[in-house]
């Protein structure tokens, strides 16, 4: 957070020094009244603010605000105007109380400075009133956006025939108060082009334009709106906006910046959520705790930000990296859903808003168990991938069934040897509440090690019930002491490898016990010593696995080490005849292939949506320094948002996020609805009702139409959080349908059109521009979902090198939201159009105009190629007549026929230089790049 107070302190420091040297001169001229701002405040700042300022208020005394300074502190009033002898402040700085000399730290004030204070108090202690923002900061919780949403009465307006819905009443009331009239309605071609780009991010097709022009019914426009809201293109358009806000990219960022090939399911989830009009409160809850709500991909939100892949044995660096990851999650959660700059409280209390540093770390504790990375998900039963996986598992079982006949008598199943990496124990489904793993020998005689123990629920959609994050509890015979990387809690933390493992404290033996959160049917246990495959010692080689269903015992055995072949030996199949041998070889080959298929499909079931582990304690960090931990904090929400959220220190990981998600989406939370309806307004009009869409704090903008904001927010809650209804309300308003024409007299009053006397024209965003060029050329591929296409050349360097590609094929002709978007690496053609780089959240894109944009649209291979395609399309659809070609081109590109002069100039260009030259020019025209 930018500290204005500390700015101020630094800025005036030289002045204070100067004052000090000139004080004699000042104090001798007794007639001059003491000037607070010039003479007193600088001294207060250097001598007092460090203990009695914005950051700290020792003795509950605060001297940087008039209201608080005169109120005094624990010892009562400290300044009594006109009476220096009764003012504690003077007494203490003058050193009259030897036990309490102020300042307690740093240099004493000089005699001249004390005299200056005395003269100031004697003269009446004049102190200018605090500015509204400073006063608000003193009373941080008095924040407009935290006040309950009140459904406002509709304002009265004079012009009664303008409003089309209630939204317009609010707009018109403000316009009338400013003596401004709204613009007339835009003409139909402009309107359909505007609303089509706005809702689906593509131009209207010629037939859509014709249909609208020909439709004389009173709800012709509403029909267009409803068609667009129902289009799958709608989710693609609005998901792009959302991905800006949540800094989503398909690569990690920082030095290595390797791709995240499994990040796209989150992008697809957002698209689907918008298309299906998922109620916004659920949309929020799923992004925080989707793993508990049947929406695994949604938690891609948590880890959509940058992640430094470069790891080091330096504990300081490791701690800093982790603190930065959590900061990203906390800050983006706060600004995205609550519109509060929670990230500003990382180092100290927020200067202006009611966000204590403690709040920041309580939120950090909520996310403390979220790790970057891929996790296996339970895909929906009917998804093709799920079917494929089930089929592959079935095929493997078939092969193993056939193999059984090659087992010698007494061998009950196809035994694989115990592996250091991973072992699977299958058994008939059994009710279990407790699972015990008792080891009686290890392969090298030393203390045995298990890196992860997973207990799988029976049925079609097995889940690992052993995770601490799900609430499972652990016990053990003992743990090798003194190693941070070998702890009992690593047994069920969801993390693989020696660095996250449990090691027994006894050579060759030990037991662990997991208590599931609830009794469940289980049929499979998987475990390993080092799933990363690096270490092969300490492998348990003699063990028994038992379950108990209600209390910890009596125990029932479900698997044991003797179910496996001895380590290092192949499975003991026996084949006698040549026919049998060849049959066995064939089956073993099939088994190998089937295993590989299962492994691959299971692998593909992973998405970049975070891994969840039970975290240790979270501490407040002094000035945000991860190497300066202070007291432990418990997970919780912002103290200013009521009712409070308070969780126990040891709350299970998932429970923390579920609780936060529920807390944020409580109807009492005034921020959630206000922030999202403002975002919708922002994207529809180019400006929010609150101009700072992710900052509803004291430093952000105030709403231009506060009642309208509350009206929309209460509408959203009333309609069950359905966003499409709000979109419809906004785009069917008269305010939205106005023409964009500029009227000089209105411009003079409200240049930015904040009061909406016109529809503010806008340039297309980078993605909409690219999509529209493809739509115009006829090459746009509307395939939805799945892995993204790449706009960069392939590269396998460990520090990924991003070289924009210059040749484009059909796979690059999908909508740009399906680009595999690398972080911090801009695409070579369209990034120049203010495309965010996903390094930081971007709730409001800037719009700038540069000659590089012109060069990219004139000379890039992409444009030349699309110009060729557009030319081919015109020839195909309009025949050889240049006049017909030109007419079609204008209708496709600009939703209007050409004027005569344009037709003549177009034909001249086409005759002299061909259709592609004409098409290249059209792609560059302002008319195609701006929406009016």
């Amino acid at each position, binding site marked *: 957070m*930018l500290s*204005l107070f500390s700015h*101020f302190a630094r800025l005036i420091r030289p002045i204070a020094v100067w004052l000090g040297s000139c004080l004699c001169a000042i104090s001798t001229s007794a007639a001059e009244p003491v000037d607070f701002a010039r003479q007193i405040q600088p001294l207060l700042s250097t001598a007092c603010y460090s203990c009695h300022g914005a950051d700290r208020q020792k003795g509950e005394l605060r001297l940087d605000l008039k209201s608080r300074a005169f109120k005094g502190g624990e010892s009562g009033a400290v300044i009594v105007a006109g009476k220096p002898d009764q003012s504690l402040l003077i007494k203490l700085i003058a050193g009259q109380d030897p036990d309490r000399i102020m300042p307690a730290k740093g240099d004493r004030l000089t005699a001249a400075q004390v005299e200056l204070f005395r003269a100031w108090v004697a003269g009446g202690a004049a102190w200018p009133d605090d*500015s509204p*923002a*400073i006063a608000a900061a003193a009373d941080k919780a008095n924040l407009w956006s935290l006040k309950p949403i009140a459904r406002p009465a509709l304002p009265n307006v004079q012009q009664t025939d303008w409003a089309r819905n209630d939204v317009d009443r609010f707009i018109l009331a403000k316009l009338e108060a400013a003596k401004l009239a709204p613009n007339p309605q835009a003409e139909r071609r402009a309107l359909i082009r505007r609303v089509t780009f706005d809702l689906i991010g593509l131009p209207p097709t010629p037939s859509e334009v014709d249909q609208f022009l020909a439709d004389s019914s009173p709800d012709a426009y509403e029909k267009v709106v409803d068609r667009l809201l129902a289009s799958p293109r709608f989710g693609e358009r609005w998901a792009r906006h959302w991905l800006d806000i949540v800094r989503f990219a398909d690569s990690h960022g*920082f*030095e*290595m910046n390797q791709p995240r090939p499994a990040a796209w399911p989150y992008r697809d989830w957002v698209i689907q959520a918008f298309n299906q009009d998922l109620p916004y409160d659920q949309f929020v809850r799923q992004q925080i705790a989707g793993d508990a709500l049947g929406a695994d991909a949604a938690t891609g939100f948590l880890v959509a930000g*940058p992640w*430094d892949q470069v790891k*080091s044995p*330096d504990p*300081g*660096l490791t701690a*800093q990296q982790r603190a*930065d990851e959590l900061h990203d999650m906390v800050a983006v959660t706060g*600004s995205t859903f609550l519109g509060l*700059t929670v990230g*500003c409280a990382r180092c100290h209390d927020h200067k202006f808003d009611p966000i204590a540093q403690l709040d920041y770390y309580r939120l950090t504790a909520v996310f403390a168990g979220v790790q970057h990375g891929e996790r296996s998900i339970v895909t929906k039963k009917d998804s093709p991938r799920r079917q494929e996986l089930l089929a592959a598992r079935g095929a493997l079982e078939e092969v193993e069934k056939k193999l059984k006949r090659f087992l010698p008598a007494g061998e009950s199943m196809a035994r694989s040897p115990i592996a250091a990496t991973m072992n699977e124990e299958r058994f008939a489904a059994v009710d279990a509440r407790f699972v015990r793993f008792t080891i009686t020998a290890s392969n090298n005689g030393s203390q045995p090690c298990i890196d992860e123990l997973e207990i799988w629920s029976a049925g079609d959609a097995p889940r690992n019930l052993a995770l601490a994050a799900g609430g499972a509890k652990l016990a053990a015979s003992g743990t090798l002491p003194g190693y941070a990387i070998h702890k009992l809690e690593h047994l069920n933390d969801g993390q693989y490898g020696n660095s996250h493992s449990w090691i027994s404290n006894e050579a060759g033996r030990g037991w662990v016990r997991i208590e599931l959160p609830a009794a469940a049917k289980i049929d499979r246990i998987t475990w390993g010593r080092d799933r990363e495959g690096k270490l092969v010692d300490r492998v348990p080689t003699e063990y028994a696995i038992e379950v108990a269903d209600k209390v910890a015992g009596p125990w029932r055995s479900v698997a044991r080490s003797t179910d496996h072949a001895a380590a290092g030996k192949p499975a003991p199949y026996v084949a006698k005849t040549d026919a049998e041998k060849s049959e066995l070889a064939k089956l073993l080959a099939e088994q190998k292939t089937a295993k590989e298929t299962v492994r691959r499909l299971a692998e593909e079931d992973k998405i970049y949506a975070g891994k969840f582990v039970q975290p240790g304690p979270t501490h407040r960090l002094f000035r945000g320094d991860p190497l300066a931990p202070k007291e432990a904090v418990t997970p919780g929400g912002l103290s200013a948002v009521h009712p409070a959220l308070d969780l126990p220190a040891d709350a299970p990981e998932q429970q923390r996020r579920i609780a936060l998600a529920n807390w944020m989406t409580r109807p009492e939370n005034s921020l959630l609805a206000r922030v999202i309806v403002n975002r919708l307004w922002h994207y529809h009009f180019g400006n929010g009702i609150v101009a*700072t869409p992710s900052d509803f704090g004291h*430093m*952000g903008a105030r709403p231009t139409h506060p009642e309208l904001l509350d009206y929309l927010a209460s509408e959203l809650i009333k309609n069950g959080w359905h966003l499409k209804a709000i979109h419809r309300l906004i785009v069917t308003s008269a305010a939205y349908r106005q023409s964009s024409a*500029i009227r000089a007299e209105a*411009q003079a009053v409200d240049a930015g059109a904040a009061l909406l006397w016109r529809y503010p*024209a806008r*340039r297309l965003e980078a993605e909409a521009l690219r999509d529209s060029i493809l739509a115009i050329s006829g090459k746009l591929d509307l395939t939805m979902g799945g892995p993204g296409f790449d706009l960069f050349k392939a590269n396998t*360097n460990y*520090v990924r*090198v991003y070289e924009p590609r210059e040749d484009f094929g059909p796979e690059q002709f999908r909508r740009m939201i399906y680009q595999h978007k690398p*972080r*911090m*690496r801009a695409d070579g*053609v369209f990034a120049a*159009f203010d*495309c965010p*780089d*996903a*390094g*930081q959240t971007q709730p409001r894109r800037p*719009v*700038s*105009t540069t*000659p*590089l944009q*012109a*060069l990219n649209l004139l*000379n890039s291979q992409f444009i*030349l190629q699309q110009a060729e395609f557009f030319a081919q399309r015109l020839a195909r659809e309009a025949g050889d007549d240049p006049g017909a070609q030109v007419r079609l081109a204008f209708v496709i590109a600009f939703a209007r026929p050409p004027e005569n002069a*344009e037709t003549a100039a177009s034909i001249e260009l086409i005759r*002299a*230089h*061909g259709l592609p030259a*004409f098409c*290249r*020019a059209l792609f*560059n*025209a*302002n008319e195609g790049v*701006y929406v009016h």
Partner: protein
Amino acid sequence: MSTDLSHTGRALLDRRAFLGGSLGGLAGIALAGLLRDQKLLGAEPVRPLIRANAPLAARPAHFAPRAKKVLVIFCSGALSHLDTFDYKPELIRRAGTPLPGSDKLITFQGEQGMLTAPLYSFKPRGRSGKMISDLLPNLANLADEMCFIHSMTAKSNTHGPAENQMGTGYTLEGFPSMGAWVSYALGCEAGDLPAFVAIPDPRGVPQTGAAQWAAGFLPAVFQGTAFNADRPIPHLARPDSIAPAADVASRDFLKLLNDRHLEQHPGDTALAARIASYELAGRMQLSAAEVGDLSKESAATLDLYGANDPNKLKAGFARNCILARRLLERGVRFVQLFNGAYAMGEGVGNWDGHKSLKKQYDVHGPIIDQPAAALLSDLKSRGLLDETLVLFTTEFGRMPTFQKGASGRDHNPRGFTVWMAGAGVKHAFSHGSTDDFGYQAAESPATIYDLHATLLHLLGLDHERLSFYHNGIERRLTDVHGHVIREVLA
């Protein structure tokens, strides 16, 4: 080029109402409340006055500048201060013994070996007698021009965040680069060239790549344009497949369309600005091609830089150095010249000497030395150093020890050296120091915030008042930190 703006457009763009951030908030959101409150507090942001039709036009500084433009030479991978500019006799004496207190010290790649003397011997240089090593002999000869800061510290000891910090002020991703901040504040005097040019090494880009010249959340117009002597601005030239006459005809037709469209939307300055950007693009096609054409450089100049050297990498870097001079000559505000790239891996194509530092620096030293020294002396002889600040920097330093079991030095953000030269800074001057071993900044420790504050100060900019509102915060290059290092000012 016949794409001059129409009468209507010209009149529109010349109107006074067009000034300021009226278009798309180029200067950020000037919130009335923000301004009011900050004014009361005395440190209100100074919003650059940006003309939307010429967003890169020169703008006044906050106060009289000491330097008009900046050249940053960035050594990617962390150039060892101990083997170049920071002379430590005690390190030579105690070589082969442990760094005191280092038995438990874990740095980026792990444990420490023994203290290791500089791998290149030091000699007094110039009239000042500054001790500089033999790794960079030509640069060393210019010691009397240089103003060293030996007490630099960085916040991170891994390349990504550390390069981010040197380039953008923040260790995190997504913040505007220093050149973008300067373009935003000051625009540029080279009318037809970009205000901020990044010149990647012939071997490729640094670890954090384009983040070094990104606009972050600033408008894209302020981002650096990346090109070098061998790779021109992308899409600058008319493609071969377009005949010159067809290009002219298409652009004339485009202008006709745009003019008619503007007539339909009277008063829309954004449209006029975009028409103007096509004019500028046309002029840039000529001027950028001209600046990148080194064929007019004399044989003596080419030889001075080593542009014909048989070492292809050296010759390539030399051509980039000549390009840097040509850009500065033509008024480009901020030129960032990169030495070293990461495409080839740790230490191979850059200064990241972990395992066999001597072997790698023997390769890298000659690539940078003569060309960079020639650039500095050429700037001086042409009088450009009077108005250009040169900053020679890297992301952090290296350890006085070798890594355990290796012949190279690990990352060390606790102490390293940068130097400046040219406009506004002292000559033959050294500020601050590291301890006896060159391990930690000891006297007058300086942060990257301080370095950036100093750089902005020399350009006439108050680092506390150069800000841009983003997502709840008036963001600055120096975050909430930074003090101008007054000791280095001339």
